[in-house]
């Protein structure tokens, strides 16, 4: 029984870019090769968007951050020397950009102007993907749980939120997170622990936190 505990973590996202590959891509960007710009976007736009979305909890803000991030990446690729991976370099820019004061100011002012952003916009994509495996009841329960988790995540201390999101949403290793946040491995470990404890406390009672059936190790992915 105990070995199955570890299988839960077996879905580490596969490494796509080795270091040499990163340097090649960076050099191709510096040379202005069209395919390099396409490759960078196709590799990173989706994860950067999801990271920004979970850090900020708002689709419009996340979209602004993503644009700023890629502008910085394109303009500063000359300073990328391969001391870190392209992945940690870009995620680091993303975390910093999410807490950039200048952007923050506009974001909050805009929020005051558009008091009510249309929730339909963010909901559409969820409804666009029907799921035939589960009953409408299961889907509804799951959606409700997601909403609760999202709310709890947004109430979490931002320092813990960063660590938990980088781990559980972006799927990075402790070492990569340490590099992105410029802290020690021990600090990463304790921030993730404290973040999860705070989430558990917030959600206690309101959520079924026992491992459900879908926790069965996925081997196909």
């Amino acid at each position, binding site marked *: 029984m105990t070995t199955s*505990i570890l299988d839960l973590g077996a*879905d580490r996202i596969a490494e796509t870019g080795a270091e040499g590959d990163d340097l090649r891509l960076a050099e191709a960007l510096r040379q202005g090769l069209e395919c390099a710009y396409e490759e960078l976007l196709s590799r990173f736009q989706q994860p950067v968007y*999801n990271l920004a979305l979970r850090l900020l909890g708002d689709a419009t803000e996340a979209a602004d951050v993503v*644009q700023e991030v890629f502008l910085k990446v394109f303009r500063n690729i000359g300073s990328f020397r391969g001391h870190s991976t392209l992945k940690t370099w870009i995620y680091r820019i993303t975390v910093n950009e999410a807490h950039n004061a200048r952007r923050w100011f506009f974001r909050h002012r805009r929020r005051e102007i558009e008091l009510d952003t249309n929730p339909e916009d963010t909901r559409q994509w969820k409804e666009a993907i029907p799921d035939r495996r589960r009953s409408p009841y299961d889907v509804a329960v799951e959606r409700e749980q997601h909403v609760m988790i999202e709310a709890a995540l947004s109430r979490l201390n*931002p*320092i813990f939120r960063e660590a938990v999101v980088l781990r559980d*949403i972006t799927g990075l290793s402790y070492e990569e997170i340490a590099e992105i946040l410029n802290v020690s491995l021990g600090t990463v470990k304790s921030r993730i622990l404290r973040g999860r404890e705070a*989430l558990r406390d917030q959600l206690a009672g309101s959520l079924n936190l026992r491992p459900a059936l879908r926790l069965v190790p996925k081997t196909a992915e």
Partner: protein
Amino acid sequence: MSCEKVQKQISSLLDRELPAGEREGVLAHIGSCRQCGAYWEAFAGLRAQLRGLDRPPIPEDLRARLRVMASHERERRLVRLSLSARMSHWASHARLVFDNLMRPLALPFAGGSLMALVTFSLLVPSLSSFSHNFGDQSWFKPPVPESSYVPGVVHNALIVRSDIVAPEGANAVELTIDEQGKVRDYSVVRGELTPDLQSIIMLPPPFSPATVLGLPIPSKVKVIQYQAPNRRS
């Protein structure tokens, strides 16, 4: 192994970030201790929920805007590349002409630039002492108390009203405090996010929520840390 110690490791165990040596002991304990078993179940469930959160596809209009930006930035780079190629060609050509012209004057010229260097370095100490005088914290005015925070010094940083401007050379963050007095978000308004500032954000908050007519409301405070630049390196 104590339950407390085991529970501290469970989060890392789930992430497969626990060294092999420690893994066995923790696993054995979880298998035999009901309390730690329940703790593990709760954490595994939470982690699965987090990982199961939707990863919405990037919006189509954002995707399009990124593509436009990429092609614009690429153009920009190509222009700069061809410009710098032309410049370096021109520069090497010019240097050759210049060298030939200036060879008889080489020594006097070197003497002249040496003189300029000496003059400049004589000036520099006075410049740097000028910037040192700035470090005497004369910018600091005692903060006016406000209901949303307990003003004071924590981790050698000042907690002040959010409208107080952080001086140059300081590191400062603006915190959003929610109606429960907890830090919801932060933004770096000056300098960088130092380890001290990070620990202040994580503190069990010294903040009590601002109130209007007795009702707690979200508010902002600023945390300023004056620090000599490059202390970290």
